[in-house]
């Protein structure tokens, strides 16, 4: 079930020659899916409202017209059923892309996505794989209330056998999505409803971004600020503010948390002797907690302070905009954590 590789261009988007356009995050994901569907008939998209409605968030806009209803498939509101169905199809060698309108809705499909997809290969002794991509919106910020604002990476990154991709910008979203579709293992691709309209430079030529390769978004010498997904943008904002205060921040975007590019983080921390982790999931038993533990272990003698962490607050997501903004790992909290970690508080 290995995909045929037609000499993929495998580069960081900014190193690519050729025209660069500014497109939205959602356009980037759509381009990735469409390109891969043109390349491989085994790839298809299914989910709620992906076809006739053009996608609840317009990510799949126009795809029905190009690929037809056999490959762009509207499902009923039946996450457990269609996630399980797609997993069965993947075990036969198809390469489904399953859209969860929100990752919050994946909770009712927890059994298939956690018990079947990531364990099939192991339980079958290597006979059956599961080349599938689950994708959808993750995280709070849109005043959607407690049940629709899940950061599922806090739950799912605990499970061996899944890859977890959390892009922070349109260019990464495209390159990582193409890699996810070609990957032979189950990939959980976490988008953000808050970012779908964000515009960014995306090269026109084909490129794929590998998993487990962090990007250094900003170089700095005083502190290493590690994050992934939407909070990377908060980190860059905070870094600007902190620069004015004389704190030179290095911002690392992990891009994927499974696999995790620890070497890039360790190299940076050995240089700055200081680390802050920003993670939009709850703090207890979180990916951010895991990364902090790994930094402590691998940089024990290099650290001038313990690794500081910024998370969403340890409460259910509030509806009120004011409360929700305070709840998120926002710029203010990041600045405070960096000042504390660098003894400038």
């Amino acid at each position: 079930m290995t995909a045929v590789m037609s000499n993929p261009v495998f580069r960081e988007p900014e190193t690519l020659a050729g025209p660069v356009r500014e497109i939205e995050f959602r356009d980037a994901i759509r381009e990735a899916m469409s390109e891969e569907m043109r390349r491989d008939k085994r790839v298809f998209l299914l989910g709620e409202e992906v076809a006739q409605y053009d996608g609840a968030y317009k990510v799949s806009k126009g795809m029905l017209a190009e690929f037809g209803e056999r490959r762009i498939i509207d499902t009923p509101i039946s996450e457990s059923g269609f996630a399980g169905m797609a997993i069965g199809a993947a075990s036969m060698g198809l390469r489904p892309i399953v859209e969860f309108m929100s990752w919050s809705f994946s909770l009712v499909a927890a059994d298939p996505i956690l018990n079947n997809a990531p364990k099939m290969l192991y339980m079958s002794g290597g006979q059956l794989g599961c080349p599938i991509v689950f994708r959808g919106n993750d995280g709070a910020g849109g005043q959607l209330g407690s049940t629709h604002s899940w950061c599922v990476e806090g739950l799912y990154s605990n499970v061996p056998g899944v890859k977890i991709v959390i892009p922070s910008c349109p260019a990464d979203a495209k390159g990582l999505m193409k890699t996810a579709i070609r990957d032979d293992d189950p990939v959980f691709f976490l988008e953000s409803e808050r970012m779908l309209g964000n515009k960014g430079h995306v090269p026109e030529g084909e490129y794929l971004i590998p998993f487990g390769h962090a990007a250094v978004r900003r170089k700095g010498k005083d502190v290493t600020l590690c994050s992934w997904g939407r909070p990377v943008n908060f980190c860059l904002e905070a870094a600007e503010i902190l620069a004015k205060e004389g704190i030179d921040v290095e911002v690392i975007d992990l891009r994927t948390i499974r696999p995790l590019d620890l070497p890039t983080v360790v190299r940076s921390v050995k240089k700055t002797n200081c680390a802050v982790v920003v993670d939009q999931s709850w703090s207890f038993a979180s990916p951010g907690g895991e990364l902090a533990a790994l930094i402590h272990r691998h940089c024990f003698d290099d650290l001038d302070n313990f690794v500081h962490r910024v998370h969403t607050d340890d409460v259910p997501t509030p509806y009120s905009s004011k409360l929700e903004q305070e709840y998120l790992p926002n710029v203010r909290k990041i600045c405070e954590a960096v000042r504390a970690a660098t003894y400038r508080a």
Partner: protein
Amino acid sequence: MSSAQASPATPIAGNRKLPSLPQATLTKWLRDMHLIREFEVRCMQSYQEKKIGGFCHVYIGQEAVAVGCTQAVRPEDPIVTAYRDHGHALARGMTSRACMAEMYGKVGGCAKGKGGSMHMFDRPNNLYGGHGIVGAQTPLGTGLAFATKYEDEVVHGGKNRRVTLCFLGDGAVNQGAFYEAMNLAGLFDIPVIFIVENNGYSMGTAIHRGTTMSHDLCIKGRAHGLKEATIDGMDVVAVYNEMHALAEWCRANSRPAIVDMKCYRYKGHSMSDPRKYRTREEEERHESNDPIGKFERVLLDHGVVDDAAIKSIMASCREEVRDSIQFSNESPEPPLSDLYTDVFVEPWGPFTGSSQPEFTGGAANVCSFRATDGKEGLV
């Protein structure tokens, strides 16, 4: 019981006429049933000897279902089942050695000892598990059938050729996933047959205590437009005849079906079940309707076999299972390195290994991390 029994039960399909198949085929059915029973009896012994661990659910009494159903379809038709799966694996062609060694947790097992009794996988024979969570295999079965249709129609541009058998127990009909699976199958014209092996008990709960309208489980499929059949699962000839007709209908029409397969589980739910929820008299009544004895009489009446042939079949099954136990005892324990394999096809994705990316200075470091046997992040 409160379950309204207003609608009459679907009549049990009754074509018990021995099909005109080669003598060798009919004899093979008998041998397959004997093999499963002998295999399961020895499983119970091995379990008591603690050679088999964990949960173990034996199939004794239901042999006609797995054999009749698998024989009624083509080898390329996928099948998937729940955790009482040894019978399906053997009927589908898995060797006794691979099946037994899997339960012994040895490298000679079908999944190298990583799956166990509840997770029999056999890709060459199109057996897609062996699934442990009740009802979880029903969306998967729909997905297998979806894939056969998609492969034939979209990838190869032809016509659908395959039908999928998805087995479940009567306890699984109360899981939500089953209804979602049936709805999707009905909606998308998916050729999957949900075979409810209705042995009357979900663990220790008699069916009427847990299931509404339990006199006729086909009702559960009616809301989704599934074709229905109620079949005497204690008669391999009836199972074959009815399933063959049904499978060919589903194949030709690319539509799903549900089967209320009436059968009985002679032993407990699992090895730890003392069966206090039912009477010995009830068990004896069903044991006197034994599918193997019944089929032997049919074959004797039709002159397909004689007593000597039956004895020889039984002897060969005993020998095969004895050999599988010897094989399993002698098969090595998995090496500890096996703990870390088969977690990912490629832990770092499609562009590492031989196609290691050249653009990043981090590549070398990533490689050194990979060299730690999949223990991510630890050096």
